């Protein structure tokens, strides 16, 4: 019987079905375990809300530190959810099947990263205007903050995927992941939080947002391949 299926090997036509498969499956799984997502989002909201309580209700000070606090909380929320990206698939054998699929591994991983962003980064960015109000960030600043988070959070998911794949199967993988990935998040943090500062200083956020956009493009092209290489190493 089975002649090798006239196969979905490494031609470009197999990329989109691969992305679609991983995206659809991971979204389905995420929606089936909504509680976990809710907890992560709540974590983000609580961390952001702690700072005004612990520091000062002084409007100017809050407006200055608000964007930075939101960004740090977004980093932590992203970090908290990263182990979910590959660890469960690794434990139950799905990752082996994914790596042996005729679809290109970077395509499948891109789909997983996209699903990760849709379930963690996107809600974080969409909640930002609401949380920014607590810090008396003015409306233009809120807009720029949200735009920066929309551009920046996918970079967090993409870079995080590399770290999650590299720490697969390691004991204390979670804490190692934080050490490995947080320094890589620093440029995103600087340009992202800096965007609102530039607006406040009257410089406009174009430069910061362009840099974030460029970073996103570079990460979107490179990260799936790096993560794919790391996954193959983890399976060996």
């Amino acid at each position, binding site marked *: *019987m*089975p*002649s*090798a*299926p006239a*196969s*979905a*090997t*490494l031609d470009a036509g*197999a990329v989109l*079905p691969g992305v679609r*498969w991983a995206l659809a*499956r991971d979204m*389905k*799984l995420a929606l*089936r*375990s909504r509680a976990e997502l809710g907890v992560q989002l709540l974590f983000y909201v609580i961390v952001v809300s702690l700072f005004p309580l612990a520091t000062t209700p002084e409007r100017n000070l809050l407006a200055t530190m608000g964007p930075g606090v939101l960004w740090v909380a977004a980093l932590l929320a992203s970090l908290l959810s990263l182990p979910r990206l590959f660890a469960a698939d690794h*434990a*139950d*054998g*799905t990752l*082996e*099947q*994914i*790596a*042996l*699929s*005729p*679809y290109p*591994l970077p395509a499948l991983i891109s789909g997983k990263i996209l699903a990760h962003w849709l379930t963690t980064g996107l809600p974080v960015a969409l909640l930002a205007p609401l949380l920014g109000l607590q810090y008396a960030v003015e409306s233009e600043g809120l807009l720029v903050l949200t735009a920066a988070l929309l551009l920046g959070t996918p970079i967090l998911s993409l870079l995080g995927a590399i770290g999650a794949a590299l720490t697969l199967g390691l004991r204390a993988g979670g804490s190692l992941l934080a050490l490995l990935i947080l320094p890589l998040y620093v440029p995103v943090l600087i340009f992202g939080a800096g965007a609102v500062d530039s607006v406040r200083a009257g410089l406009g956020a174009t430069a910061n947002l362009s840099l974030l956009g460029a970073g996103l493009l570079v990460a979107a092209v490179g990260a799936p391949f790096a993560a794919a290489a790391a996954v*193959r190493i983890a*399976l*060996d």
Partner: protein
Amino acid sequence: MLEIHDLAARRGNTRLFAGLSFKVEAGQVLVVTGANGTGKTTLLRMVAGLSAPESGEIRWNGTAVAPFDPTLRAATAFAGHHPALKDELTAEENLAALVELAGEPAPREKIRGALDAVSLTRQRTLPARVLSQGQRRRIGLARLTLSGRPLWILDEPVTALDAAGTALLATLVADHLASGGLAVAATHTSLGLPEARVRSLALA
């Protein structure tokens, strides 16, 4: 045709095996036996293209294949220790997802038919979380039949299967071989396959 030439494997400082050569032709199964820790799983993962051998070569239909080679990936169905099921998904959704991942179409009737064939008709809409180990294994068997792959790699396929399940596995493998497929299986349970089709390899 699967050919292994002078294969060697090492895990840490331990040499598992070396100088391993064999050939499996269409319609044949290679049954790998050996005590625990002699490298059966390692060998199977190398053949599947998941691990790189220390030295030696694996050839599929005459061409040497490296780990994760696209030709090899398009030709093999690997059933390892873990059945790759998601607890949150139903038996039907799990099977459909795995078949689609293998690049095969997964229409509903085909999925249901395959689940019927492994006696999981009533468990079709149950989440995999509540299925027994044997039932999870049966989903794995259904996946093999739908994979459309010529080379089946089975690591301890009998684990957790009851007598009826083992008989079912034997029938599926026999059908697969009869239609020109190949298989490599690590198992100590005789599947009662015709002797002409069985090649044996004992690791020590």
